[in-house]
């Protein structure tokens, strides 16, 4: 009885407070002629966005502008997660290296990233980007990649005639290889030797890709950027804003992922590795069947929160002038005189992104956990 009263009292207080806030909001909005509602989404946005994944112009609606921002956020998050994972695993392994120099460099990199604010790193990288040489004096990196104050230009893969057939052949080969992998796994579970099924599958995919490619006559071509006087023609050019944001997010998050990976690998007990070699597993098998599954089990939950952090940190794009979800929404909030609805929309969108990411990672996490009896 007392507990019910206490709960109702708490709820009542919260509701009362919310009602007070909302009443004030009503007064203030009437006074300053602000409105609430989502009707504004259909009116003309009237502002331009530098970088878009799909067609957008200032005459499009606010809804389309919002979607452009959302697509940009998703693009940065996805690319960032992939690149940060790769760099993070390299960092984590380097932190475990017996080579003193490699170990200390990785440690220094991790400390530097973890102890300085991401926002400062981003504006620093952006300041470096716009001080880069002009297009005429681009820094040429191996593989026809060019870096200059207009951004990063690189070759873009393009499909040639015959790509469809080649893709079909490769997909079939991948399917067969996957089947071989599953059969090999069943054999292992049953205590029999998997033989060379996996190797055969891998070889088949490689053969299908190369052989098929030769038969079709080059299914994928490269559109190489060509230097003109003021810009690059062809290829893929990423703006300095996106380059700075992506680079900053990746090197920052990779340092954290590196520590997660290191912790995960170190947490696998020595006895496990000794036991594996005593039953005659090779180093590769030990890594693949003993160390990796156990490390993964420890790594996945903290890795998930690093992915979520990266997605949320992409909202710092506004500091380097990249039009992500938050940046577009802020412009919308200023222009429409409807800041409450805009911020509700933005927060709900970020919540959905976070929830979907954790959902996917939870499914993956469940797959790598041990089944406890």
């Amino acid at each position, binding site marked *: 009885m007392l*507990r019910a009263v*206490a*709960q*109702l009292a*708490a*709820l009542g207080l*919260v509701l009362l407070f919310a009602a007070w*806030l*909302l009443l*004030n*909001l009503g*007064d*203030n*909005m009437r*006074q300053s002629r*602000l409105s609430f509602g989502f009707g504004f989404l259909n009116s003309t946005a009237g502002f331009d966005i530098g970088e878009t994944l799909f067609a957008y112009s200032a005459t499009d609606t606010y809804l389309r502008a919002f979607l452009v921002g959302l697509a940009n956020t998703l693009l940065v998050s996805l690319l960032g997660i992939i690149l940060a994972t790769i760099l993070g695993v390299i960092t984590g392994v380097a932190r475990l290296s*017996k*080579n*003193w*120099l*490699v170990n200390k*460099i990785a440690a220094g990199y991790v*400390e*530097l990233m*973890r*102890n*300085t*604010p*991401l*926002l*400062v*790193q981003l*504006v*620093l990288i952006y*300041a*470096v980007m716009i*001080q880069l040489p002009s297009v005429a004096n681009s820094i040429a990196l191996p593989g026809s990649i060019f870096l200059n104050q207009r951004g990063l230009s690189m070759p873009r893969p393009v499909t040639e005639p015959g790509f469809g057939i080649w893709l079909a052949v490769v997909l079939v080969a991948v399917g067969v290889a996957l089947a071989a992998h599953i059969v090999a796994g069943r054999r292992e579970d049953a205590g029999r030797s998997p033989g060379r099924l996996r190797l055969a599958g891998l070889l088949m995919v490689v053969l299908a890709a190369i052989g098929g490619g030769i038969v079709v006559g080059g299914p994928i071509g490269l559109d190489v950027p060509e230097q003109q006087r003021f810009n690059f023609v062809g290829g893929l050019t990423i703006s300095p804003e996106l380059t700075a944001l992506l680079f900053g997010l990746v090197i920052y998050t990779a340092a954290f992922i590196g520590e997660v990976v290191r912790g995960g690998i170190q947490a696998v007990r020595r006895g496990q590795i000794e036991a594996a070699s005593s039953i005659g597993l090779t180093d590769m098998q030990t890594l693949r069947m003993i160390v990796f599954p156990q490390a993964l089990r420890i790594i996945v939950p903290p890795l998930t929160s690093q992915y979520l952090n990266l997605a*949320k*940190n992409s*909202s*710092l794009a*506004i*500091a380097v002038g990249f039009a992500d979800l*938050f940046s577009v929404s*802020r412009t919308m*909030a200023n222009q429409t005189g409807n*800041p*409450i609805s805009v*911020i509700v929309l*933005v*927060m709900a969108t*970020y*919540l959905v992104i*976070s*929830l979907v990411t954790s959902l996917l990672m939870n499914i993956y996490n469940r797959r790598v956990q041990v089944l406890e009896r």
Partner: protein
Amino acid sequence: MSGGELADLPRLPPVPEPPPVRTIGLAAWLRANLFSSWMSSLVTILVGLVVAYVGLLVVQWVINARWEVVTENLRLFLMGQYPIEHAWRIWLALAGLSLLTGLTAASAGGPTRALATWLAAGQAMLGLLMLDSPMGTVAALATMANAGLLWLAFVVALRRPVPSRALGFAWLVYVPAALFVLHGMGGTPLDVVPARFWGGLLLTFMLAIAGIVLSFPFGVLLALGRRSDMRLISGMSTTFIEVVRGVPLITILFMASILLPLFLPGDLRIDAVLRAIGGITIFSAAYVAENVRGGLQAIPSGQIEAANAIGLNAFQRNLYIVLPQALRSVIPANVGLFISLLKDTTLVFIAGGGLLELLGIGRSVLAQPAFFGTHLEVYVFISAVFFVLCYAMSQASYRLEAAMGVGTR
């Protein structure tokens, strides 16, 4: 048994053993750590060349950089627009901090010593920087005297340790006292210096310390609420925690700085600094709550049953049995959180509201025509300041973990 049997066996010539592998000395260290295999040697040489090249570039840049942008504007970086005739208040607050830190480091030992060392070194370095700036010799001497005061307090307290209760009390008094000295109050000899004049490192510290102090109790309450078996309370706490953790800090700060005034009566104006502190506190509390929840879950149920068995009520059980154990085990995790909080204070300048903490001051300095194009110098300086602060905190946290035996008991 005759004694000669063994002696009669033919003696084998001594086998020459290979010389023992040297395990000490420079050469042995190099072989073990840098050139253990041909692969390792190759990596060492390649990486070493790259490091040497990059290091050379960095040294060249540091020597040629226009550091006058930092020294000329040092006052702005440190205290923003805080009126110069009131600057002595900052040194007074700093002197209190040095004194207490020195006493604590000597009496409590452990992780606080790392913090004390960093604080003293930081003040000494700042003093050196000030010698070269328009802030002048007096300010430089005041800052260095502060480092000296810390050292003096440390030496004195080593001889006569201060009891921990007195120390705790002194810190509890210090925080509001320092706020009072810095902000002042109408009707007292200390004139009010409105928070909008605060800036630079002073504001960064203010935001971080207020955020840490406020978000901790709030987070503990939320964690208890989430674990409560009262459905309504646990539901409300869970919703709050998950919503806050699902959105970026910048959206919360944006809400606090732009939208909060819309939710308050027209005549109630909340200062921009307070709004930012509110936003940071709300954000940080949700993360503290999740940390504390981890600590709560780690408490064996026997503890709670025992508390019930001796007749403690829910309030007593939490206060005397559950929380002391739970909070102890999550202190290191919370230190990590507070490092992020310190770094996150930089976000207030893009959230609007006109607050110029360290990064904001940096941007406004860059807007001066005289310092056009010194972005790198300014940002590297700001990064260095944050690095020293955060590195000191993380070192203290490592020692704390070791001292508390986290993971070993």
